[in-house]
């Protein structure tokens, strides 16, 4: 038991003095956070305040202007990029409309592979978990927007990643599904995962830290 706790507690996602630029404008400057196992950070703020940009920087999809993101855990070799320990659920679902849901999920399961320390569940179980067990045979394009979003979420379950980066995870979802998602995210946290989420609706996560993004409109003018 103690061993498990120690293993869990050695995971750490650290961001130091991040700032990012879009075109000429600095979107945010000097953001630092330090998340350990079971901790979550919820980003809030108005549209355009840089929530998505920050998430993309952490996911390694944008180069930060300054600062760095570091991932450490017991099992990871040094030099592992933080992005490799992350699941990223962006605005788009990253599923092919022409393929069936089962094909989509099976592809991502096989392509992602599991990071040390956990194991993904099968596509059928994942679909069951998000409440859509019966429609695995349908092409993804036939599903409604809400069902597509749920299946995109099921993608996070088929392969294990300790860190979940969620950008507006509950967009297009009904109230029931929102509740179910909160349950899944809390389960991930309880299992020692880390969650980084941007949202407008309160997600109802247990003991989540909150980071209010304010945006830096105007910094660009000052530089001139």
């Amino acid at each position, binding site marked *: 038991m103690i061993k498990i706790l120690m293993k869990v507690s050695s995971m750490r996602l650290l961001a130091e003095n991040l700032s990012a630029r879009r075109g000429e404008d600095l979107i945010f400057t000097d953001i630092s956070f330090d998340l350990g196992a079971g901790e979550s950070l919820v980003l809030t703020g108005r549209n355009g305040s840089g929530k998505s940009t920050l998430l*993309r920087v952490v*996911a*390694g*999809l*944008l*180069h930060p202007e300054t600062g760095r993101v570091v991932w450490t855990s017991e099992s990871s070799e040094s030099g*592992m990029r933080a*992005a*490799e320990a*992350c699941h*990223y659920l*962006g*605005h*788009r*679902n*990253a*599923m*092919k*409309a*022409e*393929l069936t849901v089962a*094909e989509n999920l*099976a*592809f*991502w399961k*096989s*392509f*992602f*592979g599991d990071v040390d320390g956990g194991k993904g569940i099968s596509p059928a179980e994942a679909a069951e978990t998000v409440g859509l067990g019966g429609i695995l045979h349908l092409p993804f394009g036939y599903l409604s927007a809400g069902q597509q979003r749920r299946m995109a979420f099921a993608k996070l379950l088929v392969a294990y990643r300790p860190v979940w980066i969620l950008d507006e995870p509950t967009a297009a979802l009904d109230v029931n599904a929102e509740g179910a998602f909160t349950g899944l995210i809390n389960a991930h946290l309880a299992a020692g995962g880390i969650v980084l989420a941007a949202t407008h609706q309160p997600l109802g996560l247990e003991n989540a830290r909150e980071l209010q993004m304010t945006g830096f409109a105007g910094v660009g003018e000052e530089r001139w």
Partner: protein
Amino acid sequence: MTALLLRDLKLSVRAGGGALIGVLFFMTVVAVIPFGVGPDLNLLSRIGPAIVWIGALLSALLGLDRLFQTEREDGSLDLLLMQEHPLVLTVLVKCLAHWLGNGLPLVIASPLLGLFMNMDEVAIGATMLTLLVGTPALTFIGAVGAAVAVALPRGGLLVSILVLPLAIPVLIFGVSASYAAVEDPAPFMPPFLILVAITMFFAVLGPLGAALALRNAGD
């Protein structure tokens, strides 16, 4: 990686995939030439290998811009970029899948179109062989263009124009090897081996360049 190969192959044959479109375009281009040139059989068989090669080149360029754009549009590209697998390898596998789905059908269709052009068996065989060796180079070159233009809406024509200068040597050596097989004095092997070398060269350089472009396309 096998999963990625299989997925891309499935996508290329399902609705909206480019496999059939490329072959149809190839047939259209080559099939109208005899009507334009007229029923001079000697002339047709003389220009045959060149026309088949030009048709294959244009059809190969046709579907290339979608190589990464579809991935970007549905957000898959982000996830492909984040993984542990080297991005170069991911790009290489995507190129292979694209060639199997779009390039190989062109090679298979080329003997039929050779008949349209009144080419004899040797010329048809030589053209098919040079296409088999040369079209992968077109895919690898095109991957760089597709990666550079990935964020541009309607980047299709731009991709074709970007990669055309690099594709010209493939065309030159492909056609000259095909001619060398039928015309006596010219040796077949030198242009053919240069074609092989071009393909192998771009098999290394293309995925590297495309991976670099994708990494820096960040948006």
